[in-house]
Protein backbone atom coordinates (compact mmCIF):
# COMPACT_ATOMS: atom_id res chain seq x y z
CA UNK A 1 0.00 0.00 0.00
CA UNK A 2 1.19 3.48 -0.90
CA UNK A 3 1.62 5.70 2.13
CA UNK A 4 0.85 2.83 4.46
CA UNK A 5 2.70 4.33 7.41
CA UNK A 6 1.04 7.71 6.94
CA UNK A 7 -2.44 6.20 6.71
CA UNK A 8 -1.89 4.11 9.82
CA UNK A 9 -0.57 7.12 11.70
CA UNK A 10 -3.60 9.24 10.70
CA UNK A 11 -6.01 6.48 11.63
CA UNK A 12 -4.52 5.77 15.05
CA UNK A 13 -4.19 9.51 15.68
CA UNK A 14 -7.88 10.27 15.40
CA UNK A 15 -9.13 7.06 16.96
CA UNK A 16 -7.54 7.67 20.34
CA UNK A 17 -8.29 4.21 21.71
CA UNK A 18 -6.75 0.81 20.98
CA UNK A 19 -7.82 -0.35 17.53
CA UNK A 20 -7.94 -4.01 16.51
CA UNK A 21 -5.70 -5.28 13.73
CA UNK A 22 -8.76 -6.61 11.99
CA UNK A 23 -10.45 -3.25 11.95
CA UNK A 24 -7.32 -1.55 10.66
CA UNK A 25 -6.99 -4.08 7.88
CA UNK A 26 -10.54 -3.50 6.78
CA UNK A 27 -10.27 0.31 6.93
CA UNK A 28 -6.96 0.43 5.05
CA UNK A 29 -7.94 -2.44 2.78
CA UNK A 30 -4.79 -4.50 3.40
CA UNK A 31 -3.87 -8.03 4.48
CA UNK A 32 -2.33 -9.01 7.79
CA UNK A 33 1.21 -9.41 6.42
CA UNK A 34 1.24 -5.94 4.98
CA UNK A 35 -0.14 -4.46 8.19
CA UNK A 36 2.63 -6.17 10.18
CA UNK A 37 5.21 -4.61 7.88
CA UNK A 38 3.66 -1.15 8.13
CA UNK A 39 3.48 -1.37 11.92
CA UNK A 40 7.17 -2.30 12.07
CA UNK A 41 8.07 0.62 9.83
CA UNK A 42 6.04 3.02 11.91
CA UNK A 43 7.60 1.62 15.08
CA UNK A 44 11.08 2.22 13.71
CA UNK A 45 10.16 5.78 12.74
CA UNK A 46 8.83 6.45 16.20
CA UNK A 47 12.07 5.33 17.83
CA UNK A 48 13.69 8.54 16.65
CA UNK A 49 14.43 11.10 19.36
CA UNK A 50 12.51 13.64 17.32
CA UNK A 51 9.25 11.76 17.81
CA UNK A 52 7.10 12.16 20.91
CA UNK A 53 4.79 9.22 20.25
CA UNK A 54 4.97 5.46 20.51
CA UNK A 55 2.89 2.44 19.59
CA UNK A 56 1.33 0.51 22.44
CA UNK A 57 0.10 -2.90 21.37
CA UNK A 58 -0.87 -6.39 22.39
CA UNK A 59 -1.49 -9.24 19.97
CA UNK A 60 -4.87 -7.96 18.86
CA UNK A 61 -4.95 -4.24 19.27
CA UNK A 62 -2.72 -1.25 18.78
CA UNK A 63 -2.80 2.37 19.96
CA UNK A 64 -0.81 5.54 19.46
CA UNK A 65 0.29 7.17 22.72
CA UNK A 66 2.86 9.62 24.04
CA UNK A 67 6.29 8.34 25.08
CA UNK A 68 6.65 7.78 28.85
CA UNK A 69 9.52 10.27 29.11
CA UNK A 70 6.94 13.06 28.59
CA UNK A 71 4.55 11.77 31.24
CA UNK A 72 5.53 14.17 33.98
CA UNK A 73 5.52 17.28 31.82
CA UNK A 74 2.17 16.32 30.25
CA UNK A 75 0.53 15.42 33.53
CA UNK A 76 1.43 18.69 35.15
CA UNK A 77 0.25 20.48 32.02
CA UNK A 78 -3.11 18.77 32.16
CA UNK A 79 -3.46 19.32 35.86
CA UNK A 80 -2.77 23.00 35.39
CA UNK A 81 -5.31 23.21 32.57
CA UNK A 82 -8.12 21.68 34.58
CA UNK A 83 -7.42 23.40 37.89
CA UNK A 84 -7.38 26.92 36.44
CA UNK A 85 -10.26 29.18 37.43
CA UNK A 86 -13.32 28.77 35.25
CA UNK A 87 -13.41 31.19 32.33
CA UNK A 88 -16.52 33.35 31.81
CA UNK A 89 -17.50 31.01 28.98
CA UNK A 90 -17.17 27.93 31.20
CA UNK A 91 -19.18 29.58 33.96
CA UNK A 92 -21.85 30.42 31.43
CA UNK A 93 -22.13 26.83 30.22
CA UNK A 94 -22.00 25.46 33.75
CA UNK A 95 -24.70 27.84 34.98
CA UNK A 96 -27.07 26.71 32.22
CA UNK A 97 -26.42 23.08 33.10
CA UNK A 98 -26.82 23.73 36.83
CA UNK A 99 -30.06 25.69 36.46
CA UNK A 100 -31.67 24.00 33.49
CA UNK A 101 -30.07 20.56 33.35
CA UNK A 102 -30.40 17.82 32.40
CA UNK A 103 -30.00 19.52 29.07
CA UNK A 104 -28.90 18.50 25.59
CA UNK A 105 -25.83 19.98 23.95
CA UNK A 106 -27.94 21.46 21.14
CA UNK A 107 -30.15 23.30 23.63
CA UNK A 108 -27.18 24.55 25.60
CA UNK A 109 -25.57 25.84 22.41
CA UNK A 110 -28.81 27.43 21.32
CA UNK A 111 -29.06 29.37 24.59
CA UNK A 112 -25.41 30.40 24.55
CA UNK A 113 -25.27 31.04 20.82
CA UNK A 114 -21.86 29.36 20.62
CA UNK A 115 -20.54 25.90 19.89
CA UNK A 116 -19.80 24.25 23.24
CA UNK A 117 -18.21 20.87 22.54
CA UNK A 118 -14.82 21.70 24.00
CA UNK A 119 -16.21 23.48 27.05
CA UNK A 120 -18.45 20.54 27.83
CA UNK A 121 -15.51 18.17 27.60
CA UNK A 122 -13.48 20.38 29.87
CA UNK A 123 -16.31 20.59 32.43
CA UNK A 124 -16.58 16.80 32.37
CA UNK A 125 -12.86 16.31 32.83
CA UNK A 126 -13.00 18.66 35.81
CA UNK A 127 -15.72 16.51 37.36
CA UNK A 128 -18.27 19.34 37.33
CA UNK A 129 -20.60 17.91 34.71
CA UNK A 130 -21.57 14.42 33.65
CA UNK A 131 -23.14 13.05 30.53
CA UNK A 132 -25.73 10.28 30.36
CA UNK A 133 -28.04 8.69 27.78
CA UNK A 134 -31.29 10.52 27.27
CA UNK A 135 -33.97 8.07 28.48
CA UNK A 136 -36.41 9.50 25.93
CA UNK A 137 -34.00 9.44 22.98
CA UNK A 138 -31.75 6.44 23.56
CA UNK A 139 -29.34 7.62 20.87
CA UNK A 140 -28.88 11.06 22.43
CA UNK A 141 -27.12 12.46 25.48
CA UNK A 142 -28.01 14.86 28.25
CA UNK A 143 -25.72 16.80 30.60
CA UNK A 144 -26.21 17.52 34.29
CA UNK A 145 -24.18 18.78 37.22
CA UNK A 146 -22.34 16.15 39.23
CA UNK A 147 -23.04 15.25 42.84
CA UNK A 148 -19.68 16.82 43.73
CA UNK A 149 -20.75 20.07 42.09
CA UNK A 150 -23.92 20.26 44.21
CA UNK A 151 -21.90 19.49 47.31
CA UNK A 152 -19.41 22.21 46.40
CA UNK A 153 -22.23 24.72 45.87
CA UNK A 154 -23.77 23.69 49.18
CA UNK A 155 -27.16 22.75 47.76
CA UNK A 156 -29.16 19.53 47.59
CA UNK A 157 -31.09 20.25 44.42
CA UNK A 158 -31.08 22.87 41.68
CA UNK A 159 -34.30 24.45 42.98
CA UNK A 160 -32.22 25.93 45.80
CA UNK A 161 -30.16 28.02 43.40
CA UNK A 162 -30.82 31.79 43.66
CA UNK A 163 -33.58 33.09 41.34
CA UNK A 164 -34.29 29.54 40.18
CA UNK A 165 -38.02 30.18 39.54
CA UNK A 166 -37.30 33.38 37.68
CA UNK A 167 -34.96 31.75 35.19
CA UNK A 168 -37.46 28.96 34.60
CA UNK A 169 -40.04 31.60 33.71
CA UNK A 170 -37.65 33.47 31.43
CA UNK A 171 -36.80 30.26 29.71
CA UNK A 172 -40.43 29.56 28.87
CA UNK A 173 -40.52 32.76 26.84
CA UNK A 174 -37.43 31.83 24.92
CA UNK A 175 -38.01 28.12 24.70
CA UNK A 176 -37.61 26.43 21.40
CA UNK A 177 -39.77 23.45 20.56
CA UNK A 178 -37.62 21.96 17.80
CA UNK A 179 -35.89 18.62 18.34
CA UNK A 180 -32.89 19.20 20.51
CA UNK A 181 -31.23 15.97 21.35
CA UNK A 182 -27.64 15.52 20.49
CA UNK A 183 -26.94 12.58 18.23
CA UNK A 184 -24.78 9.81 19.63
CA UNK A 185 -21.09 10.23 18.99
Amino acid at each position, binding site marked *: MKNGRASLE*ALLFIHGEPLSYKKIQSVLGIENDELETIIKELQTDLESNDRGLQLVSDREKIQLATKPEFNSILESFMKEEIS*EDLTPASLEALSIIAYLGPISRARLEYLRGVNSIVIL*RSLMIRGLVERFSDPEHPSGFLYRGTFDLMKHLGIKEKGELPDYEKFQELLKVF*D*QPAAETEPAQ
Partner: protein
Amino acid sequence: MEYETRVGEFSGPLEKLLTLIEAEKMDINEVSLAKVTDDFLRYLETFKKGMTEDAEAIDADAERKFRVDLRILADFVSVASKLIFLKSKYLLPGLALTQEEEADIKDLEARLHIYQQLKPAIKLINQLWATSHHSFSRQYFIGKVAMPGQTTFYPGTNLDTEALTAAMHGIFDTIKTYDIETETIREKIVTLEEKISEVLGRIQKEGDMHFNNLSGEKSRGEMIVVFLAILHLAREQLVLLEQMDNFSDIMVKKK
Protein backbone atom coordinates in the same frame (compact mmCIF):
# COMPACT_ATOMS: atom_id res chain seq x y z
CA MET B 1 -31.61 25.93 13.77
CA GLU B 2 -35.04 25.63 12.32
CA TYR B 3 -35.89 29.31 12.15
CA GLU B 4 -32.84 30.27 10.16
CA THR B 5 -34.01 28.48 7.07
CA ARG B 6 -35.78 31.56 5.82
CA VAL B 7 -32.81 33.82 6.41
CA GLY B 8 -30.69 31.45 4.44
CA GLU B 9 -32.79 31.64 1.34
CA PHE B 10 -32.01 35.31 0.92
CA SER B 11 -28.41 36.29 0.51
CA GLY B 12 -29.13 39.95 0.85
CA PRO B 13 -30.17 43.07 -1.04
CA LEU B 14 -26.75 43.67 -2.61
CA GLU B 15 -26.58 40.18 -4.02
CA LYS B 16 -30.10 40.53 -5.41
CA LEU B 17 -29.43 43.95 -6.89
CA LEU B 18 -26.21 42.81 -8.49
CA THR B 19 -27.89 39.74 -9.94
CA LEU B 20 -30.57 41.93 -11.50
CA ILE B 21 -28.03 44.30 -13.00
CA GLU B 22 -25.83 41.51 -14.29
CA ALA B 23 -28.83 39.74 -15.80
CA GLU B 24 -29.35 42.86 -17.92
CA LYS B 25 -25.63 42.89 -18.79
CA MET B 26 -25.36 46.44 -17.49
CA ASP B 27 -22.62 48.23 -15.58
CA ILE B 28 -23.20 49.44 -12.08
CA ASN B 29 -24.32 53.06 -12.28
CA GLU B 30 -27.29 55.30 -11.58
CA VAL B 31 -28.99 54.44 -14.82
CA SER B 32 -28.84 50.70 -14.34
CA LEU B 33 -29.93 51.04 -10.72
CA ALA B 34 -32.94 53.09 -11.71
CA LYS B 35 -33.72 50.53 -14.36
CA VAL B 36 -33.79 47.51 -12.04
CA THR B 37 -35.72 49.31 -9.30
CA ASP B 38 -39.07 47.84 -10.27
CA ASP B 39 -37.69 44.31 -10.37
CA PHE B 40 -36.13 44.83 -7.00
CA LEU B 41 -39.40 46.05 -5.52
CA ARG B 42 -41.24 43.11 -7.00
CA TYR B 43 -38.77 40.79 -5.35
CA LEU B 44 -39.23 42.64 -2.06
CA GLU B 45 -42.96 42.06 -2.39
CA THR B 46 -42.60 38.29 -2.74
CA PHE B 47 -40.45 38.33 0.35
CA LYS B 48 -43.06 40.34 2.20
CA LYS B 49 -45.83 38.00 1.13
CA GLY B 50 -43.99 35.04 2.60
CA MET B 51 -43.67 36.97 5.82
CA THR B 52 -47.36 37.76 6.17
CA GLU B 53 -48.17 34.10 5.85
CA ASP B 54 -45.73 33.34 8.64
CA ALA B 55 -47.11 36.08 10.84
CA GLU B 56 -50.53 34.46 10.78
CA ALA B 57 -49.26 31.46 12.64
CA ILE B 58 -49.20 32.35 16.30
CA ASP B 59 -46.80 29.91 17.92
CA ALA B 60 -43.51 31.12 19.31
CA ASP B 61 -41.49 29.59 16.55
CA ALA B 62 -43.37 31.41 13.80
CA GLU B 63 -43.14 34.62 15.79
CA ARG B 64 -39.37 34.25 15.98
CA LYS B 65 -39.17 33.50 12.29
CA PHE B 66 -41.20 36.61 11.60
CA ARG B 67 -38.83 38.76 13.65
CA VAL B 68 -35.82 37.37 11.86
CA ASP B 69 -37.47 38.17 8.56
CA LEU B 70 -38.16 41.70 9.77
CA ARG B 71 -34.46 42.30 10.24
CA ILE B 72 -33.74 41.26 6.71
CA LEU B 73 -36.69 43.19 5.39
CA ALA B 74 -35.30 46.29 7.08
CA ASP B 75 -32.17 46.03 4.99
CA PHE B 76 -34.08 45.38 1.80
CA VAL B 77 -36.31 48.35 2.53
CA SER B 78 -33.28 50.48 3.27
CA VAL B 79 -31.81 49.67 -0.14
CA ALA B 80 -35.22 50.00 -1.74
CA SER B 81 -35.67 53.50 -0.33
CA LYS B 82 -32.33 54.54 -1.83
CA LEU B 83 -33.45 53.20 -5.17
CA ILE B 84 -36.71 55.07 -4.85
CA PHE B 85 -34.86 58.30 -4.15
CA LEU B 86 -32.86 57.68 -7.25
CA LYS B 87 -35.88 56.86 -9.34
CA SER B 88 -37.67 59.87 -7.97
CA LYS B 89 -34.96 62.02 -9.48
CA TYR B 90 -36.29 60.96 -12.83
CA LEU B 91 -39.97 60.83 -11.93
CA LEU B 92 -40.41 63.65 -9.45
CA PRO B 93 -38.22 66.58 -10.34
CA GLY B 94 -39.97 68.53 -7.58
CA LEU B 95 -38.37 66.30 -5.01
CA ALA B 96 -34.79 67.50 -5.08
CA LEU B 97 -32.34 65.16 -3.41
CA THR B 98 -30.38 66.36 -0.43
CA GLN B 99 -26.63 65.94 -0.34
CA GLU B 100 -27.07 63.10 2.06
CA GLU B 101 -29.39 61.26 -0.29
CA GLU B 102 -27.04 61.77 -3.20
CA ALA B 103 -24.27 60.40 -1.03
CA ASP B 104 -26.45 57.41 -0.13
CA ILE B 105 -26.84 56.56 -3.78
CA LYS B 106 -23.10 56.90 -4.39
CA ASP B 107 -22.54 54.67 -1.38
CA LEU B 108 -24.89 52.06 -2.78
CA GLU B 109 -22.99 52.10 -6.05
CA ALA B 110 -19.69 51.74 -4.22
CA ARG B 111 -20.99 48.81 -2.18
CA LEU B 112 -22.18 47.05 -5.30
CA HIS B 113 -18.73 47.43 -6.84
CA ILE B 114 -17.15 45.87 -3.76
CA TYR B 115 -19.74 43.13 -3.67
CA GLN B 116 -19.02 42.38 -7.31
CA GLN B 117 -15.37 41.85 -6.40
CA LEU B 118 -16.31 39.70 -3.43
CA LYS B 119 -18.59 37.40 -5.36
CA PRO B 120 -15.81 35.13 -6.68
CA ALA B 121 -14.65 34.53 -3.09
CA ILE B 122 -18.10 33.21 -2.24
CA LYS B 123 -17.96 30.87 -5.22
CA LEU B 124 -14.51 29.65 -4.20
CA ILE B 125 -15.58 28.87 -0.64
CA ASN B 126 -18.67 27.12 -1.91
CA GLN B 127 -16.52 24.96 -4.15
CA LEU B 128 -14.09 24.15 -1.35
CA TRP B 129 -16.95 23.37 1.00
CA ALA B 130 -18.47 20.92 -1.45
CA THR B 131 -15.33 19.21 -2.72
CA SER B 132 -12.53 19.64 -0.22
CA HIS B 133 -10.96 16.78 1.67
CA HIS B 134 -11.26 17.32 5.37
CA SER B 135 -8.59 17.24 7.97
CA PHE B 136 -9.45 15.78 11.39
CA SER B 137 -8.14 16.47 14.86
CA ARG B 138 -8.33 14.73 18.23
CA GLN B 139 -10.86 15.55 20.92
CA TYR B 140 -9.77 17.75 23.79
CA PHE B 141 -7.76 15.55 26.18
CA ILE B 142 -9.17 12.43 24.59
CA GLY B 143 -9.44 9.50 26.97
CA LYS B 144 -9.05 11.73 30.01
CA VAL B 145 -12.72 12.13 30.94
CA ALA B 146 -13.27 10.65 34.37
CA MET B 147 -15.11 7.35 34.39
CA PRO B 148 -18.17 7.04 36.64
CA GLY B 149 -17.04 6.43 40.19
CA GLN B 150 -13.69 8.03 39.60
CA THR B 151 -13.11 11.01 41.84
CA THR B 152 -11.72 13.95 39.97
CA PHE B 153 -13.01 17.30 41.05
CA TYR B 154 -11.41 20.58 40.00
CA PRO B 155 -13.80 23.47 40.66
CA GLY B 156 -11.18 26.24 40.57
CA THR B 157 -11.36 29.09 43.06
CA ASN B 158 -14.14 31.18 41.51
CA LEU B 159 -17.06 28.76 41.50
CA ASP B 160 -19.99 29.41 43.81
CA THR B 161 -23.74 29.96 43.48
CA GLU B 162 -23.28 33.74 43.05
CA ALA B 163 -20.97 33.20 40.08
CA LEU B 164 -23.50 30.87 38.45
CA THR B 165 -26.40 33.26 39.07
CA ALA B 166 -24.42 36.16 37.61
CA ALA B 167 -23.61 34.07 34.54
CA MET B 168 -27.30 33.22 34.09
CA HIS B 169 -28.24 36.89 34.28
CA GLY B 170 -25.62 37.60 31.65
CA ILE B 171 -27.08 35.00 29.31
CA PHE B 172 -30.63 36.28 29.60
CA ASP B 173 -29.46 39.87 29.20
CA THR B 174 -27.84 38.90 25.92
CA ILE B 175 -31.00 37.18 24.78
CA LYS B 176 -33.04 40.24 25.73
CA THR B 177 -30.76 42.62 23.83
CA TYR B 178 -31.10 40.37 20.83
CA ASP B 179 -34.90 40.63 21.06
CA ILE B 180 -35.00 44.38 21.72
CA GLU B 181 -32.86 45.01 18.67
CA THR B 182 -35.49 43.33 16.54
CA GLU B 183 -38.34 45.19 18.18
CA THR B 184 -36.72 48.51 17.32
CA ILE B 185 -36.42 47.48 13.71
CA ARG B 186 -40.04 46.46 13.68
CA GLU B 187 -41.14 49.85 14.98
CA LYS B 188 -39.12 51.65 12.37
CA ILE B 189 -40.50 49.84 9.40
CA VAL B 190 -43.70 51.25 8.12
CA THR B 191 -45.03 48.15 6.49
CA LEU B 192 -45.80 48.22 2.84
CA GLU B 193 -49.15 46.56 3.23
CA GLU B 194 -50.39 49.15 5.68
CA LYS B 195 -49.36 51.97 3.42
CA ILE B 196 -50.81 50.34 0.37
CA SER B 197 -54.18 49.79 1.95
CA GLU B 198 -54.09 53.31 3.37
CA VAL B 199 -53.41 54.76 -0.06
CA LEU B 200 -56.09 52.59 -1.61
CA GLY B 201 -58.57 53.63 1.02
CA ARG B 202 -57.95 57.31 0.45
CA ILE B 203 -58.13 56.99 -3.30
CA GLN B 204 -61.46 55.28 -3.04
CA LYS B 205 -62.76 57.91 -0.66
CA GLU B 206 -61.55 61.03 -2.34
CA GLY B 207 -61.20 59.99 -5.89
CA ASP B 208 -58.15 61.18 -7.75
CA MET B 209 -55.74 63.19 -5.75
CA HIS B 210 -52.29 64.56 -5.94
CA PHE B 211 -49.25 62.78 -4.67
CA ASN B 212 -48.31 65.87 -2.70
CA ASN B 213 -51.60 65.66 -0.89
CA LEU B 214 -51.23 62.03 -0.14
CA SER B 215 -47.86 62.44 1.39
CA GLY B 216 -49.10 65.44 3.34
CA GLU B 217 -47.00 66.60 6.24
CA LYS B 218 -45.18 63.35 6.61
CA SER B 219 -41.53 62.89 7.19
CA ARG B 220 -39.37 62.21 4.18
CA GLY B 221 -38.90 58.61 5.17
CA GLU B 222 -42.61 58.03 5.25
CA MET B 223 -43.06 59.93 2.02
CA ILE B 224 -40.73 57.49 0.38
CA VAL B 225 -42.77 54.61 1.67
CA VAL B 226 -45.89 56.23 0.28
CA PHE B 227 -44.13 56.61 -3.02
CA LEU B 228 -43.02 53.02 -2.85
CA ALA B 229 -46.59 51.99 -2.23
CA ILE B 230 -47.77 53.98 -5.21
CA LEU B 231 -45.16 52.44 -7.45
CA HIS B 232 -46.31 49.09 -6.23
CA LEU B 233 -49.93 49.91 -6.94
CA ALA B 234 -49.04 51.19 -10.35
CA ARG B 235 -47.26 47.99 -11.10
CA GLU B 236 -50.22 45.99 -9.97
CA GLN B 237 -52.23 48.30 -12.20
CA LEU B 238 -54.64 49.13 -9.46
CA VAL B 239 -54.12 52.81 -10.09
CA LEU B 240 -52.65 54.70 -12.96
CA LEU B 241 -49.78 57.08 -12.54
CA GLU B 242 -49.97 60.19 -14.59
CA GLN B 243 -47.34 62.85 -14.76
CA MET B 244 -48.43 65.73 -16.98
CA ASP B 245 -45.00 67.20 -17.56
CA ASN B 246 -41.59 66.88 -16.02
CA PHE B 247 -42.10 69.29 -13.16
CA SER B 248 -45.67 68.67 -12.20
CA ASP B 249 -47.23 66.71 -9.39
CA ILE B 250 -48.02 63.06 -10.00
CA MET B 251 -51.71 62.23 -10.30
CA VAL B 252 -52.99 59.08 -8.65
CA LYS B 253 -56.12 57.82 -10.41
CA LYS B 254 -58.52 55.06 -9.64
CA LYS B 255 -58.72 52.53 -12.42
